[in-house]
């Protein structure tokens, strides 16, 4: 009996101290990991959207809370005014899971500047063709106050052949980002100016 008790106690103590160490490491390094993820995962997409080196734009980041989920929004300024936003959107219902997208929004002209794919797990040769410029450039210049749709649903976006689910997910993600902009535009601009004042 005492041997069983000893086993339980020793194993619990080992597991307990291990979790304590892990929690400490995780808590301590989480901000750094977040920064690295921004630089290497979101960085390339932001570079293409803004046409600026990722290091310059990564600090221009505000988080918008919608229904308990924090959505990152990046921005650049033209003079004193915020000129372009990049809103991260989740394209739900891709063939291999959700797509992580970045939608560029030009506030001056009221047009979209493009769609970028941050990460996806679509089938190579089919859904993965979402990375191709030919598909993504269809977003350039679309108005931000109108929902995008596939040609099959009366819109202007040509779906990737053989990858309807992926195309639908990209369109759905875009529409969510546009909704977010419509509903939270003031909140986004407010938190940007709050961030600017702080720095």
């Amino acid at each position, binding site marked *: 009996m005492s041997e069983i008790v000893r086993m339980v106690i020793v194993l619990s103590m080992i597991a307990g101290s291990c979790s304590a160490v892990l929690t400490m490491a995780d808590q301590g*390094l989480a901000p750094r990991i977040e920064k*690295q993820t921004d630089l290497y995962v979101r960085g390339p997409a932001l570079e293409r959207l803004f046409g600026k080196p990722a290091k310059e734009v990564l600090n221009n980041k505000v988080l918008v809370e919608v229904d308990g989920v924090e959505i990152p929004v990046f921005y650049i300024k033209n003079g004193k005014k915020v000129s372009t936003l990049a809103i991260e959107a989740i394209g739900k219902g891709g063939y291999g899971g959700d797509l992580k997208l970045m939608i560029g929004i030009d506030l001056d002209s009221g047009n979209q500047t493009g769609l970028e794919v941050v990460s996806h797990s679509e089938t190579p040769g089919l859904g993965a063709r979402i990375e191709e410029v030919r598909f993504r450039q269809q977003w350039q210049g679309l108005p931000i106050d109108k929902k995008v749709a596939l040609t099959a649903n009366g819109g202007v976006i040509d779906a990737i052949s053989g990858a309807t689910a992926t195309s639908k997910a990209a369109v759905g993600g875009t529409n969510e980002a546009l909704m977010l902009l419509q509903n939270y535009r003031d909140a986004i601009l407010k938190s940007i100016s709050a961030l600017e004042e702080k720095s």
Partner: protein
Amino acid sequence: MSQNLKVILTAGLWKRIPPFRLVLGLCPALAITTSVENGLGMGLALAFVVTMSGGIISSLRNIIPAKVRIASYIVIIATLVSIVEILMKAYFFPLSEQLGIYIPLIVVNCIVLGRAEGFASKNPPLPSMVDGVSIGLGYTLSLTIIGSIREILGAGSWFGIPVFGEFFEPLSFMVSAPGAFVTIGVLLGLQNLFSRWRGEKFVQG
């Protein structure tokens, strides 16, 4: 004592160098050695885990009851591996993306568990850590050599720097899976041949 430590330290570099002599830990050795950088990174990650787990397990060897020892080892090793993973994500993000699943898989790497069970559970902390360093360095050395051969022949570069002129046609076979088997097989054969020629006694495994 110091003589003894020296024997332990050098053993991992030739006499029981993984993965050739130990013939453990072959899975990452085959999978990630497409470039030198990956091999070196993987080797160092394993060296850290095997050294620290050697130290911790051998200092707890008289406290851990025999019946739950494997469970305890796994918990300790898993913690160390998670720490390596967090550190890599924080400081070497591109490398951690490259190595991907093979970093978490160190938990079930037979080298780590094998050294814990075969050495650290029977020896005091200092020799166990020396053993971990030696095995870790041996593994790093092996993976760096395998990675070098595969990257030089398969991509014509070393640490990403081109070593041949324009005329070199890379053998893409070397960076795919069969190239890994051939490289490791040839190296293992050469080591055995050399040992035999020197009349060394060795036991594989």
